[in-house]
């Protein structure tokens, strides 16, 4: 460190210059004279660890059709993705060209002006060839901003052997669930159900089961604190307090999967995205041991939320032509069929369900009717933002830190802060 300072200052200046220059990469490509696509398409995928290899393979094979296009596949963990996408879109630097967006995020991103409209020709095809409920999720103010990739809902996953050992049938209502859990505890010593306590998405089947909803978008009314909401919070607390279910308020998803895969619990509520990971568990080396039933009904009905993922193109993308072509490729019938075959995810194209590979898939056989009956959420921009305050109250209610009434009331108050001017 003799002549340290001057030398290091020089190094620092050089490093700064280098990083400053590195920022402005030109990955813009377009169509050349012959109409051939070129350039780089960066895709941010949010699929989970067991799914990502399949999606990467599929994404990269886009190059086979368009040799001049390079696909850059980036897996962004789902939990952080909404935030990271926003950061990237608002800064523009190194932003993805295509994203896989949860159906609940599309309206949010679109309302902020981040998404490029789906070209008219494609939009027409989507309206004609896709499941109507899925197509609706890609729209904001009657314009289509995203093409549906997969559709899903929640179901009751159960360990067939454990239920048989306890001599119970898959429960169809919460009451049956409690009786079944008591039997399971008595016969096997294990707990009946794992209930997510740290994610309010899992609250939706409960409130739908009581005939309620978070909000009534038509009348601009918050309904989470209505009688159905209170009943739903009560039901959640009751499951845990009665010992029918265990819960966690941190690392819940992972603990749920571990508990179900190792036979610590006999049932869990989850979606098709968890199928592949579940099959990897020691209890399900024989795949036939996994059963899936509709979510148990509350006092009014049984209903899971309609979920899924859409593909959207960034409005600031330098390579929009190739990006839209890429989206079209990813949502083509062939790709959807392949995804279903490998991952048991549900296609969004009506005709895909006629394909033998899809038809024969057991999980699709179960989930398709459930999806048909799933409750469509209000596709408002604030959709995604409701879950965060709801989570706080839901966790409090489930763990008994707040009464169901207080939880419902606070959730309603928080919702009204987000939805300005709503009743």
């Amino acid at each position, binding site marked *: 460190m003799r002549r340290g300072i001057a030398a290091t200052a020089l190094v620092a200046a050089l490093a700064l210059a280098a990083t400053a220059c590195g920022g402005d990469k030109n990955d813009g490509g377009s169509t050349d004279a012959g109409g051939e696509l070129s350039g780089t398409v960066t895709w941010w995928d949010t699929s989970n660890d067991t799914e990502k290899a399949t999606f990467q393979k599929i994404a990269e094979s886009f190059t086979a059709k368009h040799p001049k296009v390079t696909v850059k596949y980036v897996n962004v963990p789902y939990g952080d993705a909404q935030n990271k996408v926003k950061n990237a879109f608002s800064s523009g630097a190194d932003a993805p060209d295509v994203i896989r967006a949860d159906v609940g995020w599309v309206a*949010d991103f679109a309302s*902020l*002006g981040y998404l490029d409209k789906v070209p008219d020709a494609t939009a027409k095809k989507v309206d004609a060839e896709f499941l109507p409920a899925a197509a609706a999720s890609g729209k904001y103010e009657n314009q289509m901003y995203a093409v549906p990739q997969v559709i899903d809902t929640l179901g009751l996953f159960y360990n067939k052997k454990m239920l048989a050992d306890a001599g119970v049938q898959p429960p169809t209502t919460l009451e049956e669930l409690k009786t079944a859990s008591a039997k399971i505890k008595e016969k096997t010593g294990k707990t009946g159900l794992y209930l997510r*306590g740290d994610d309010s998405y899992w609250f939706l089947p409960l409130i739908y089961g009581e005939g309620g909803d978070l909000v009534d978008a038509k009348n601009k009314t918050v309904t989470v604190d209505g009688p159905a909401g209170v009943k739903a919070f009560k039901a959640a607390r009751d499951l845990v307090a009665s010992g029918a279910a265990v819960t966690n308020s941190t690392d819940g998803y992972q603990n749920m999967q571990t508990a179900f895969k190792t036979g610590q619990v006999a049932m869990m509520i989850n979606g098709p995205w968890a199928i592949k990971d579940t099959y990897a568990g020691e209890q399900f080396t024989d795949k036939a041991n996994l059963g899936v039933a509709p979510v148990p009904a509350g006092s009014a009905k049984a209903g899971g939320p309609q979920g899924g993922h859409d593909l959207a193109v*960034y409005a600031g993308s330098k390579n929009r032509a190739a990006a839209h072509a890429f989206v079209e490729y990813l949502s083509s019938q062939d790709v959807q069929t392949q995804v279903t075959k490998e991952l048991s995810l549900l296609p969004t194209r009506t005709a895909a369900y006629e394909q033998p590979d899809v038809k024969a898939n057991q999980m699709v056989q179960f989930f398709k009717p459930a999806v048909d009956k799933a409750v469509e959420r209000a596709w408002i921009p*604030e959709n995604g933002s409701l879950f*965060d305050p709801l989570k706080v109250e839901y966790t409090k209610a489930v763990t008994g830190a707040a009464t169901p009434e207080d939880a419902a009331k606070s959730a309603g108050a928080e919702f009204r802060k*987000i939805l300005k001017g709503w009743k």
Partner: protein
Amino acid sequence: MAVHTSRTAAQAAGDGTDVARGRGRGGLKRALATHWYAWAMVAPVVLVLGVIIGWPLVRGVYLSLTDANERNVARTIGANTIEASYSFVGLDNYTAVLSDPVFWQRLVWTVLWTVVCVSVTFTLGLALANMLNRNFRGRAFYRMALILPWAVPGFVSVFAWRFLFNRDNGILNKVLEGGGIGAIPWLDDPTWAKLSVITVNVWLGVPFMMVALLGGLQSIPGELYEAAEMDGASAWQRFRHITLPGLRAVSMTVILLSTIWTFNMFPVIFLLTRGGPGDSTEILVTQAFREAFVSSPRDFAGSATWGVLILALLMIFALVYRRSLRKQGEVW
């Protein structure tokens, strides 16, 4: 020090370059002639702080007086430029935050968290420093082991603790269950989660305290102890009348630093519990972060309001601290 200029200095707004303003021309010239080199030396810092702290700070205060959020700030998306459309709303944000019980709940917990963490850390650090300030075999080894939590980057340790704390699969509960005690909901119960985050923060903070206090102990002349012993002072009396006063200066500094760090301790809470379960471990800074980056649409004005309020609290603390320093005769 600087007695002849202290009045002017105290009136200045807090920016070194502003000080000379308002004096007579002759005074300015004379000041320049005497102090130009000092001012030139501090110029880089004043400049940098002005640009990267001063400007954002002013803007932060301004944002807190508007209704800015993600939807109405200016942004550029590809070829489209969207103009800013937020408006000035006066003190509405402050009224909203201060009349919301959430702010007061967070404040109470943040103060509790800071006081408990700092006092426990200080006590443990002092005890360990006293133990290590003796000659015995294995001292170097203990010192190395005890310093380890400081040597490992904080975010790594916090993840490690989260791994240990996992209720269903963490080692702590496996050991407890093995010992016949039931599992403890470390991060799943509001009270336990509070204890857990405090534990981790204390674990992270003790080595720094220990090392700093050990340095302080070693700078106390040994003769003082010998003389006291000669006078028949007991171990406790020696501790009370020699050790503690000898550590006064270093203690003041580490307590100040530790208080600031703990009050603003973002990573421990954010990475361990994300403020949960529910919102029971959310402190002021994590709440402000949540407003700006987790909630959607991102409430920039709300977050700035929280930031200004937090800063005001810290300023009050610093004022009190400076007053107590002055009482001890330290002036600057």
